[in-house]
């Protein structure tokens, strides 16, 4: 991983790509299992948007690395420890409230980050971010809408939405925990400022949870590790499913 010509930039872009790829794969699990056909299609659209982002990020990461790998090699031939996504996106789908809580908490962060990256002093990152941010603006609206509907819905949907937000909350701290890579990229005028992202995220999340008559959980112990390759067990099953075909017939063309 550290052999890349620009190790910090490689790691930074890889994180963006892995977030999108892992969440796309998770959402793909809902295909043909959605609560209604319209919602099934809508969530699949979001998954495809994210898969498109992952392709762009991983292709750029491979280029930065300069080691002869391409986006597919990064997606299909890295093991769990080499994945750099935040833990939040690898969490299992659970019920629809769980899926929407995870999506909403991520979407708001994702949108704030991409807005900043649109001005990155790296033309490729700026271009990808500016393309992705338009799609993510819609993701934020959609997931926020569902959080509000379920939170401000029936007694049962309210209870499930609150439980889902509570369960996902300990995985939000990692989104804003800047490490040496984040600091370096920020100093180089490329990376997002996670402190301002946090302020934007907090205000948005509080507003939507308020509309949804949901309580904002207290910040307790926060899980972290994904950005460094220390993942939950859930990711290994996801990768096994995603990678098994590519690995059983390497170099196959489709």
């Amino acid at each position: 991983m550290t052999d890349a010509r620009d190790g910090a930039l490689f790691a930074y872009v890889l994180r963006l790509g892995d977030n999108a790829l892992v969440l796309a794969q998770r959402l793909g699990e809902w295909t043909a299992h959605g609560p209604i056909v319209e919602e099934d299609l809508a969530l699949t659209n979001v998954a495809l948007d994210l898969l498109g982002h992952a392709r762009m990020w991983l292709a750029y990461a491979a280029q930065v690395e300069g080691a002869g790998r391409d986006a597919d090699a990064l997606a299909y031939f890295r093991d769990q420890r080499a994945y750099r996504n935040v833990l939040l996106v690898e969490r299992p789908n659970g019920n629809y409230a769980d899926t929407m809580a995870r999506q909403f908490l991520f979407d708001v962060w994702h949108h704030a980050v991409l807005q900043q990256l649109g001005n990155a002093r790296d033309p490729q990152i700026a271009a990808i971010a500016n393309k992705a941010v338009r799609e993510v603006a819609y993701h934020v609206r959609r997931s926020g809408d569902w959080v509000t509907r379920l939170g401000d819905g029936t007694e049962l949907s309210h209870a499930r939405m609150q439980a889902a937000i509570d369960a996902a909350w300990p995985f939000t701290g990692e989104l804003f925990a800047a490490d040496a890579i984040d600091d370096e990229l920020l100093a180089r005028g490329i990376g997002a400022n996670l402190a301002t992202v946090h302020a934007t995220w907090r205000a948005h999340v509080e507003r939507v949870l308020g509309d949804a008559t949901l309580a904002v959980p207290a910040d307790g112990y926060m899980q972290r590790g994904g950005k460094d390759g220390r993942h939950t067990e859930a990711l290994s099953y996801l990768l096994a499913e995603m990678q098994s075909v590519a690995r059983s017939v390497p170099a196959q063309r489709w």
Partner: protein
Amino acid sequence: MSDSARAQWPLWEVFVRSSHGLAHKHVGSLHAADAAMALHNARDVYTRRSEGASLWIVRASDIVASDPADRDALFGAAEDKPYRHPTHYVVPDGVKNL
């Protein structure tokens, strides 16, 4: 979702105006709990391949439709009146959308 729960979500008719189209065209229908969800769903179900520049959503129950049994009474009288068709006019060059 059970049939009874599904039945509570009203049906909406979706009309899309394509980028180069002049009028909204009926493209299909969908179920949604309210107008805002119907608009979201229409975007996701019917404009995935950049078909549209504008969407109209109408609650299906708000559409007043003619009864097929009334076909003769409503439309039969027009069938033997070819002079109502403006086919004898010459359309000037350059008029594309008459």
